[in-house]
């Protein structure tokens, strides 16, 4: 009989021996735990260094011959440019408050996913190369030399961080771990170690205005397609303005919502809302992307992609910008835009043409979040709503990381939800609002090859969804981010089967009663409305 090791041996339980130091633990690459590298033609298009065909599972990563000098020079220049980075490198006292706050650690248990240790991957090099004392003391002072294995380790773990900033919330010093990840990724760019899911969208956005590279006529075509669906459902033909000069408002939302299920229903929700209000608004095929994959690439790319929206606002001569349900667009707007491309003085502080409310919080950026805009409309009773049309949904709300932690948008979406749905239940307190758990797909990690690791990181969110599903019968997880709409459906399917995902404005679109609309028998997904199951169509 074949000899097979007993189970304890098989799972290598080690009862006595201390574990190896993290510095001596080699980085394991296997299908499912990394994203595919940037393609050479994309790198060339973006003018980024060391374009080549390679895979993280290769032994030789084909780094440039003097890669150590290149990385250290960049490290030095980043420390000089960002005082925050230098402070974040110096002040961590390793108190451990962040250790068990990262969703990838909570779900997977890899210690290098503890934010403190992930940052230590960078700090150890900082000490080893920039601190004289630590240079001498070496490992005793937590310092080490920059070797090729370090680059591999950085690539794996800094592309296993979604920059969601949940850990930062618990840091007593306020260290922004997302910014540490950004710096690490900038260092990796210098030697050509990056992922295609970020760079290709960034390149596309740069060239055609959105991530998938949809050209203007195709974008318009998709829009008409959705208007056809709206006409089928409501009997009303909507003719949205596209690239029209002289409108009061420019509306910008993620392009993911115009072609991907279930984002398209949120897109239809916007169209219905604007029609209902008779809003003087235009869409743009040039600024057809709210998402800013430059945020995950470099400050230069972020600035350029953000600038595109403001250039378009200028070209079209609008007064202010209304922004849709998007995640990192809002982090860029709220935290970086003002010092990057702002102040946008050629625009006006947003004023709702329907209620007259002036949104002073958006005075710097001149860009207003649609949740604030809609909540204000509801508060002023300007929407004709029939929430019973959403009675098939028992909803909860997932706070998307960037609007929640990046701009403090917590109550407006909930206020809308409670007015357009009659059944709404919150998930547990330590999984929502500022403490919300990431979907696992932020910062460019929503690609299909990363699914397994994303599901691992999705456990804390999935666990909270399962709880409200079992307790209250929740069957719909609403959110205000296009990446959420792409990544939460599989997450729910794995951890809390039976729960679907929608945008908030999809539910708004269901509830709005348009003037002169026909009797609706289906919701925007063309599923029968409650009590209409037997109606024709």
């Amino acid at each position, binding site marked *: 009989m074949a000899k097979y090791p007993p189970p304890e041996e098989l799972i290598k339980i080690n009862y006595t021996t201390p574990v190896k130091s993290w510095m001596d633990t080699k980085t394991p690459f*296997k299908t499912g735990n990394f994203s595919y590298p940037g393609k050479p033609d994309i790198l060339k298009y973006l003018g980024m260094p060391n374009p080549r065909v390679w895979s993280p599972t290769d032994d030789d990563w084909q780094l440039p011959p003097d890669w150590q000098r290149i990385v250290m020079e960049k490290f030095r220049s980043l420390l000089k440019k960002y005082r925050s980075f230098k402070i974040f490198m110096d002040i961590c006292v390793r108190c451990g408050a962040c250790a068990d706050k990262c969703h990838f650690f909570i*779900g997977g248990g890899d*210690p290098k996913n503890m934010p403190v240790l992930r940052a230590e991957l960078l700090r150890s090099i900082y000490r080893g190369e920039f601190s004289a004392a630590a240079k001498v003391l070496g490992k005793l002072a937590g310092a080490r030399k920059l070797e090729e294995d370090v680059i591999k380790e950085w690539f794996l773990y800094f592309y296993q961080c979604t920059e969601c900033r949940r850990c930062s919330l618990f840091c007593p010093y306020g260290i922004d771990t997302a910014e540490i990840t950004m710096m690490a990724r900038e260092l990796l760019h210098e030697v050509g170690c990056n992922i295609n899911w970020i760079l290709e969208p960034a390149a596309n956005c740069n060239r055609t205005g959105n991530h998938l590279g949809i050209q203007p006529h195709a974008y318009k075509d998709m829009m008409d397609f959705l208007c056809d669906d709206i006409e089928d459902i409501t009997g009303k033909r909507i003719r949205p303005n596209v690239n029209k000069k002289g409108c009061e408002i420019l509306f910008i939302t993620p392009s993911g919502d115009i072609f991907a299920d279930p984002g398209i229903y949120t897109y239809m929700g916007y169209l219905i809302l604007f029609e209902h209000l008779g809003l003087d608004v235009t869409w743009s095929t040039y600024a057809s992307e709210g998402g800013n994959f430059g945020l995950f690439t470099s400050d230069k790319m972020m600035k350029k992609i953000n600038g595109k929206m403001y250039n378009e606002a200028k070209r079209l001569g609008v007064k202010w910008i209304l922004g849709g349900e998007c995640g990192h667009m809002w982090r860029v707007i709220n935290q970086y835009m003002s010092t990057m491309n702002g102040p946008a003085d050629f625009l006006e502080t947003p004023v709702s043409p329907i209620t007259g409310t002036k949104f002073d919080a958006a005075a710097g950026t001149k860009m207003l979040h649609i949740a604030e805009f809609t909540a204000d409309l509801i508060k002023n009773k300007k929407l004709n709503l029939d929430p019973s049309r959403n009675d098939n949904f028992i909803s909860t709300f997932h706070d998307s990381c960037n609007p929640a932690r990046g701009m403090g948008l917590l109550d407006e979406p909930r206020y809308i939800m409670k007015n357009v749905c009659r059944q709404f239940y919150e998930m547990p307190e330590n999984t929502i609002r500022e403490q919300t758990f990431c979907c696992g797909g932020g910062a460019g990690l929503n690609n299909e090859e990363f699914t397994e690791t994303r599901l691992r990181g999705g456990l804390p969110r999935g666990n909270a969804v399962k709880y409200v599903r079992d307790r209250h019968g929740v069957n719909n997880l609403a959110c205000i981010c296009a990446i959420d709409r792409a990544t939460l459906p599989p997450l729910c399917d794995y951890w809390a089967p039976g729960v679907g995902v929608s945008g908030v404005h999809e539910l708004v679109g269901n509830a709005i009663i348009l003037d002169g609309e026909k009797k609706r028998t289906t919701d925007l997904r063309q599923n029968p409305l409650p009590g209409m199951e037997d109606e024709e169509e």
Partner: protein
Amino acid sequence: MLKLVDFLVLDQQVVLDAWFDLILGTYAENTAVLWKKRDDPFANPVRHRFEAGMRGIVMGLASCGEAPDAATFTPFLDEIVRVRAVQDFTPAQATAFIFLLKKAVREALWPKIVEHNLFVQLLALESAIDVLALFSLDIYCQCREKIYALRIDQIKKQYDRLLKRANLVCDLSAEGGEDQ
């Protein structure tokens, strides 16, 4: 006279603690420390799911007789296997946790087994645990198949509408589907 399953119920906490320690021994030391410490079900879902699953399994074994049935045990095993299926384990490593229950039972109940001469019942219990290992294998495979299905779905959803609009694919089920 008390049977082995009675001791399993009476001393369930001792068995569960021993089993939990053994399972956490399959993770990195720092991780095990944190996961043992924190008991909020939402801050530490792994521990929460494991404990719920483990308790269900032990209670189920106490009442299932000699032939455990899949319907009873699958939900409890699922709590654990579904997590380990996405945690970088090999299939054997992911499902071997169930055998650690044997070790935990022997460690925790050995004096009682000797005192009351329950060796035959212990063999029966261990055979039942072997059956649970087979159930676990089924669940593991379902989880992995699910992951691959989700990957394929994601690709389809991303490009589906665009391909249709570009007339590169046709949807025969749609009303008035465009024949090509």
